[in-house]
């Protein structure tokens, strides 16, 4: 936890588990001459593998069999069957507490989600971190890369969210996010209102999806609150540490910015879900997350705490709890394209593991955050993007009556019960999902989806036929020209038309000679033309030609 102007890092010295690279099993490899091997196979059986190039067999042996074999065949060589594994990324045990270990979140990894850590910067040279960019708004910046971390706190926070999957060190909850460093705190871990507010503004301007604020301010700072409100309004998911101020009973020891309604406040729990003793309490508490002795990345040059200068260390506090929640939201953000920060927050609240007093309370909020692959408690729209196509499915439809999905005032085409589909070109699109919930309350929720393709220079949504072209493009039937155009008004040749038909029907397009004297294997469409001919789709002209370059007539 970092306080403005005052540093309180809780340290813990733990021995780290060492990787196991080799392990013996009860199968053995026996090397002996051919005659001996035959005799061994007869006597000891249980051959699990035989080799041909050298006299070698794999046998399953008990300890006593092994001793007996060695005694009887003294020249036979017995070797253990070692199990080799690559050095793996260490998964923090805290991830399992919130169902966010890689096994539980797979196939999601935060891909395409922009996460910023507003802190002391992020170590740009740490082998386990990939920093996509950043800014320094602090009074004192780092010398080479301005947002480099010369304090350590931000690097530790960043590793929990996004340490790389690279078979070494650790792995973060969402290793494939685009990670940004907003260095608003200086090398002593302090920053000013203007510096922090400027950092939040940078996050807005750079369209950051998730902002982690493991910072703590004791006073209500109105300019910062206003900027955070704006960020939230624009769709940002903002997460902050609740504070490490302790407290008991009905006290409110939470700090800002965690107390703001635009911010998701996170308290820290120990490995047994009990409150980390210094974790602040108060009515704004939203989630609990692991925050005790969390092992994460640290700048190597500052890593002098645990007698292992390896770039990793343990830290404790709500600063470490907040990035656990940020990581979970990054997974959700990838899994549920289009859902707003408000909706994702509601879904996370509904799936939290209730702790302490039933329901929301001052110590654990809604409870420990949990990544749930299939959220059951809330009706929501699952959008899936396939190039220029967006399909929508209403999930948990039993919780929503009269569902409707509109773009502006137009209902989207339904492709089945509680399913919709639309095709667009590159751009940002907004949809409105409305329904009546189980209490009879009418709800309206926005979805915003960005498409990056198709991006033909000469086909945009102002053309009435753009959805049709996007449909063919999204289903890999048409790709346009290499110069980025589609040339919609150019006449279509018979060869081009056959390529389209062939792809639509999944015909064999491998270029080959055809029955037509004017279409050889050199023609890119030859495979589709011959396949269509074989299927009786076309017959060509009476003179035995196909005339591939002639325009198609209606």
């Amino acid at each position, binding site marked *: 936890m970092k306080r403005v102007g005052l540093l309180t890092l809780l340290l813990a010295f733990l021995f780290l588990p060492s990787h196991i690279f080799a392990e013996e099993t009860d199968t053995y490899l026996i090397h002996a001459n051919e005659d001996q091997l035959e005799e061994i196979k007869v006597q000891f059986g249980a051959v699990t593998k035989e080799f041909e190039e050298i006299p070698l067999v794999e046998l399953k042996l008990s300890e006593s069999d092994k001793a007996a074999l060695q005694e009887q065949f003294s020249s036979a060589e017995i070797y253990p069957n070692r199990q080799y594994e690559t050095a793996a990324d260490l998964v923090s045990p805290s991830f399992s507490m919130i169902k966010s270990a890689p096994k539980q979140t797979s196939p999601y990894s935060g891909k395409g989600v922009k996460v910023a850590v507003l802190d002391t910067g992020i170590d740009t040279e740490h082998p386990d971190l990939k920093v996509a960019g950043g800014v320094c708004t602090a009074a004192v910046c780092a010398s080479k890369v301005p947002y480099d971390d010369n304090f350590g706190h931000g690097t530790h926070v960043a590793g929990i969210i996004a340490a790389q999957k690279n078979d070494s060190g650790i792995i973060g909850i969402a290793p494939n996010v685009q990670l940004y460093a907003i260095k608003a705190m200086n090398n002593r871990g302090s920053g000013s209102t203007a510096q922090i507010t400027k950092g939040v503004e940078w996050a807005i301007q750079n369209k950051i999806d998730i902002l982690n604020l493991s910072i703590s301010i004791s006073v209500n700072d109105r300019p910062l609150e206003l900027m955070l409100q704006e960020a939230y309004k624009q769709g940002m998911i903002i997460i902050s540490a609740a504070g490490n101020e302790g407290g008991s009973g009905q006290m409110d020891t939470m700090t800002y910015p965690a107390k703001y309604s635009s911010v998701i406040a996170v308290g820290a729990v120990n490995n047994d879900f009990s409150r980390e003793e210094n974790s602040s309490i108060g009515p704004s508490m939203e989630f609990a997350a692991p925050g005790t002795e969390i092992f994460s990345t640290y700048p190597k040059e500052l890593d002098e705490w645990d007698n292992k200068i390896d770039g990793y260390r343990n830290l404790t506090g709500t600063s470490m709890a907040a990035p656990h929640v940020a990581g979970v939201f990054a997974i959700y953000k990838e899994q549920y394209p289009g859902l707003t920060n408000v909706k994702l927050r509601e879904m996370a609240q509904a799936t939290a593991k209730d702790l302490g007093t039933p329901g929301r309370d001052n110590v654990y909020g809604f409870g420990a955050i949990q990544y749930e692959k299939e959220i059951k408690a809330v009706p929501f729209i699952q959008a899936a993007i396939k190039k220029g196509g967006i399909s929508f499915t209403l999930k948990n439809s039993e919780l929503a009556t009269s569902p409707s999905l509109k773009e502006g005032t137009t209902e989207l085409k339904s492709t089945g019960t509680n399913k919709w589909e639309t095709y667009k070109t590159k751009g940002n699109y907004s949809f409105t999902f409305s329904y009546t919930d189980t209490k009879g309350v009418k709800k309206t929720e926005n979805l915003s989806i960005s498409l990056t393709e198709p991006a033909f220079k000469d086909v945009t949504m102002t053309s009435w036929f753009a959805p*049709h072209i996007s*449909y063919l493009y999204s289903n890999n039937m048409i790709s346009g020209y290499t110069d980025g155009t589609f040339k919609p008004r*150019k*006449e279509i040749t018979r060869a081009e038309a056959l390529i*389209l038909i062939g792809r639509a029907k999944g015909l064999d397009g491998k270029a080959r000679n055809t029955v037509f004297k004017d279409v050889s294997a050199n023609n890119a469409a030859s495979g589709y033309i011959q396949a269509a001919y074989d299927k009786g789709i076309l017959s060509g002209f009476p003179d035995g030609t196909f005339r591939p370059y002639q325009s198609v007539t*209606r």
Partner: protein
Amino acid sequence: MALLIQNTYQFKFDPAAKMPFTDVNESMASYEAIQAMTQQGITLGVSETTFGPSMNMNRYSFSVFLARAENPLLFK
């Protein structure tokens, strides 16, 4: 186009229905295909009374017809 799409997709159509176009007659190889195209809603001709069977097509209109043939639910 009409013949190619009809050969590919084999849409059901009513061969006895009245042909609305004056520039299409039964001697043409594409006569039935044009019936299928219009009844299926893939194209309605270039005017109320003409289909324009010998008119050349451009890339977008062929794309539109193919999308309608492939996914009538979305594009008709």
